[in-house]
């Protein structure tokens, strides 16, 4: 039996006394592209922040390659973190460093590569995201789409097995968004990494995802889990169908615009 890249077990999470996610469980096999989707405030980003170890859940566990990121601390936690890459919504590139320095930073800190090896590796990563030649650009000199691609390149710096992308298409024009989708598929093909994408961009979901997990703010849990096209056509939950058909449920026209997640 192959080990799952990610296992979320009975996760209950929130902020202060407010519970946002309750008793959530799912596994992500190695090499899968999973999208986490749902309406605003359903807990997508909360789930992501717990999966990457930035927040501690109220209950439950999250295993990355069989190692709990929840119960690990200090160097052990940082060792787990080095095995995944994260591209944040706004890129989160260090503005005081050039593009090449941003990508080189994890290699300088965590590997014993020589300067020449690092320079070559940075070029390789930038080539992968079609930004070769922009090594010396500062993040402030790049367009929104280029910043996202640079963030992808930095997340790939240590050749991680798992990649987390937070709203990669948010705020981009349709062409840049489509280009990023192709890039995500390309990254998976070349690196065989497991990719978790938090998004609510329907085009992206149908283009890139092998599987979609949909969260709901009312039930605070997963209301759909499966291949996106399958869910779009055949989900038992009408809210899921409505969401994935951009507000037009082919099965039921009477609910248009006024349906809630609990409706079935």
């Amino acid at each position, binding site marked *: 039996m192959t080990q799952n890249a990610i296992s979320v077990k009975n996760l209950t999470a929130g902020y202060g006394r407010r519970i946002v996610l309750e008793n959530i469980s799912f596994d992500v096999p190695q090499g899968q592209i999973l999208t986490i989707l749902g309406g605003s405030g359903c807990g997508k980003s909360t789930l992501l922040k717990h999966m990457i170890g*930035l927040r501690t859940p109220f209950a439950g566990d999250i295993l990355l390659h069989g190692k709990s990121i929840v119960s690990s601390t200090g160097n052990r936690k940082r060792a787990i*973190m*080095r095995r995944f890459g*994260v591209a944040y919504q706004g890129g989160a590139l260090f503005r005081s460093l050039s593009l090449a320095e941003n990508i080189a930073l994890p290699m300088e800190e965590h590997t014993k590569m020589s300067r020449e090896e690092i320079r070559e590796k940075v070029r390789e990563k930038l080539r992968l995201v079609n930004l070769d030649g922009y090594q010396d650009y500062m993040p402030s000199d790049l367009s929104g789409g280029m910043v996202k691609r640079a963030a992808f390149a930095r997340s790939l710096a240590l050749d991680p097995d798992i990649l987390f992308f937070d709203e990669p298409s948010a705020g981009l024009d349709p062409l840049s968004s489509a280009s990023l989708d192709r890039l995500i598929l390309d990254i998976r093909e070349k690196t065989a990494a497991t990719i978790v994408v938090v998004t609510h961009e329907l085009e992206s979901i149908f283009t890139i995802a092998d599987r979609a997990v949909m969260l709901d703010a009312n039930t605070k849990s997963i209301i759909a889990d499966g291949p996106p096209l399958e869910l779009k056509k055949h989900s038992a939950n009408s809210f899921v169908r409505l969401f994935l058909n951009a507000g037009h449920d082919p099965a039921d026209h009477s609910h248009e615009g006024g349906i809630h997640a609990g409706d079935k």
Partner: protein
Amino acid sequence: MRRRDDMTSRNSILLQIGDVSCVIWQETLSLISFIGEAVSACADAVRRPRKIRWRETLFYMNMCGSDGLPITALICFLTGIILGYQCAVQMHKYGADAFLPGLVGCSVVRELGPMMVAIVATGRAGSAFAAEIGTMKVSEEIDAMRTMGFLPERFLVIPKLIAMALTIPMLTTIGDVMGILGGMIVGHASLGMPVQTYYQQTIEWVAPEYFFESIFKSVVFAVVITLTGCWRGFRAGNDAIAVGKATTSAVVISILFIILCDTFLAHVFNTIFFG
């Protein structure tokens, strides 16, 4: 009805006191925790000096030191002039003009020099540190550092701490000299004291140990300013208003801590070293 209103207002005052106490307690715990992380980062930096971001350290040395030199020198010079004027007027009444160089020299070197430099550094560097780290928090750069397996405290605090601990004593020494120079101009212009006499008197009164006190205090203030600025930055919320608040609180708390430290150090130096 009146009694109920009284109860409500009493409750609200008690609630407010309780709220403020809770906030102070939480902030104190967070400060202690941050100091612990900073000390651990310092120990790590001492063990592995090659891991220190030296390029950033030089950047902050330039920002805190050479960029701040003109304004710091000017403020210390003007402080010397103000102190000189105030003392000259009062001392002239009692025929104690000869004590002006000693009074200005000792006051500037032992207290006003380190204090004025620290206050200028708080306004320039402390606020900048809080704003920089606060903005990095808003743009998820701190989160990015953590998920890359870095310790943001080591990355962001250590270069600033080294830069401040090296440059603030230098600025203070220059500030001390500028303050003495300000007093000298007043002594010469207002009391007609020859420059050579003023210089001789200053050397006679201002002992070399006072410069040690000045430099020691400036190192302590540099650490206080850096840690407070960085701590407030890390404690900032996730929006632009929160960054503004963090910057303001960094300046206010730094000045408070500087004065508290100075009070303590003045007592220590006067009783232990120069008692």
